[in-house]
């Protein structure tokens, strides 16, 4: 082995370190430099706005008013004011409730339907229902008929209106169904021969084996429920029942003042901009918390497998 590395050898070593085949050598230095610059630009564009917003939500009032590239003096006043106010807290609570209840129900009904439709050959009529479900991916009735339906069934101004219309996503159902159909059939057949009923097989064999896909789909549903904005705008008038996304839109984009957002008597209120930043951070935080888990499961290829299948 060469000890003194020439330019070519170094590239060779790079390749070997990455475990790539011998014909795949590293690109010349200038190409790699361009790639590095492009990649750094992309990541900065993606991350800097988020980092900036988080940092500014902690900025001291003086720096927030002056407007800086990155704050150096910090204060928690904005968060204190928001949690005093009640509106944002209420919004977070509503969103949390919708997310927890919605995700649970969605997972239950989606996986039930997926299991019911996983044996289209044996169960008469299930193929037709599968097609009926799949067809919904290609059309939707439109805003107004959906609104009129929710109005007719009396769900207006109820948090249930944010859950029920999106209870089962046809796409998620297909992903789970694909996963179910790839489970080892011997296990399920054996249980069936031993006299286990459909429900018992589902609860004791299928579900425990499907934890990875259920976790990913659960996270997808949760993110969807947390991010619900338009349905809330459409179906919920009562400000008490607004989810955090509507609260965010009102106070950050529409510029309405947050009621009751006062820290203590005597002290001046924190500047509006830090309040806005803090609301953005609170609305984003749960996503940032679950994101590493979602991300980890991508690498397991659950999704790509589903797309290819």
């Amino acid at each position, binding site marked *: 082995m060469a000890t003194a590395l020439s330019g070519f050898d170094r590239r060779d070593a790079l390749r070997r370190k990455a475990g790539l085949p011998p014909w795949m050598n590293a690109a010349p230095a200038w190409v790699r430099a361009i790639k590095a610059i492009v990649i750094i630009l992309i990541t900065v564009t993606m991350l800097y706005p988020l980092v900036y917003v988080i940092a500014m939500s902690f900025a001291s009032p003086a720096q927030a008013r002056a407007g800086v590239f990155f704050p150096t003096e910090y204060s928690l006043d904005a968060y204190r004011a928001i949690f005093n106010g009640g509106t944002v807290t209420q919004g977070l609570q509503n969103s949390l409730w919708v997310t927890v209840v919605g995700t649970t129900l969605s997972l239950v009904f989606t996986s039930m339907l997926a299991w019911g439709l996983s044996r289209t050959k044996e169960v008469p009529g299930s193929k037709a*229902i599968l097609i009926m479900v799949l067809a919904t991916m290609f059309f939707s009735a439109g805003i107004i008929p959906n609104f009129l339906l929710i109005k007719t069934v009396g769900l207006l101004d109820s948090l249930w209106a944010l859950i029920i219309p999106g209870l089962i996503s046809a796409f998620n159902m297909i992903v789970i169904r694909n996963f179910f159909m790839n489970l080892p059939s011997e296990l399920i057949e054996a249980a069936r021969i031993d006299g286990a009923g459909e429900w018992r097989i589902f609860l004791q064999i299928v579900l425990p084996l499907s934890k990875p896909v259920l976790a990913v789909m659960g996270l997808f549903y949760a993110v969807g429920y947390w*991010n619900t904005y338009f349905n809330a705008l459409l179906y919920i008038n009562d400000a008490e029942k607004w989810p955090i996304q509507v609260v965010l839109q009102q106070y950050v984009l529409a510029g309405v003042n947050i009621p009751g957002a006062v820290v203590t008597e005597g002290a001046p209120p924190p500047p509006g901009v830090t309040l806005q930043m803090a609301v953005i951070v609170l609305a984003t935080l749960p996503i940032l918390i679950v994101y590493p888990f979602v991300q980890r499961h991508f690498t397991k290829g659950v999704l790509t497998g589903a797309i290819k299948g």
Partner: protein
Amino acid sequence: MSTQTEAGPRVPAQRDAGAPAPIKQRKVSLRKRIWRERWAYTFIVPGALFFLVFAYVPMAGNVVAFQDFSAFRGFAGSPWVGFQNFEAIFYDPEVLTALRNTLIIAFLQLIFAFPAPIALALLLDSLMSLRVKRWVQTVVYLPHFLSWVIVISVWQQVLGGGGLISNLVGGFDLMSNADTFKLLVVAQGVWKDVGWGTIIFFAAIAGIPSDRYEAAAIDGAGAWQRMRHITLPGLIPVATLLLILNLGSILTVGFEQLLLQQPMVGADAAQVLDTFVYFRGVLGGEWGIATAAGLLKGIIGTVLVLAANKFAKRLGGEGIF
């Protein structure tokens, strides 16, 4: 669920039916097959009912498009007006604006936002360090999970009046500039979803057999040529598929995104078909016209998907169905 133990007795019966000859199973009558699978239906019925009520019943609600509908009178009490609402659409200047904006944004998206994930996937695929690749993927997937409200709020804080850039360069406000708004919409879309869009292309790249690269390398093809002649052609089927799907939704351009920003730039720049339906129908109370516009849009979208699918198949590619 408490009756699940009752499923026990059916087993010997099933064994008897299956034991003599497997062919015999085919002759089992439909009624018996349904009865045998009765438990499977307990899984199907709730979900099927859900889709019936929340996807198919609203379809019927589109009759509003043929009515002079008012919420007071309801479906039964509202008078029928035939195609009057559809006629009204064609004479409505706002519809024309909405249609023009929709098509311009869709066109810009096709030019800039559609190829972006392909380029990014190729770039990331060409990286040698797996760690860098994973890290970049982690970063670029993230914005996809943020809601439009958050994305626009964040952009507002950076590019809007009183935002970061305007602090550095006085008077800068990209967010309420109606002239550049359509490009801004596309840029926001790329920022949010370019990373997410690469996933499907990575799946396609992973499906390309590696011996092709090896053979090409042995024949003297460099990294660039391998990308140009092996990877890129390998992505074409997926890209066609996505193009078909995009064509179907050409009249649907970022509804929440535009709804949120319309107050900032005005309806002339930001009214699209979906926001028109919302403002006219839900807020304005002109249910008939708004529903007719939505229905027309849905029908055109479906026709476009079917046509594009047929076209792709005729060209020898794979369709989506």
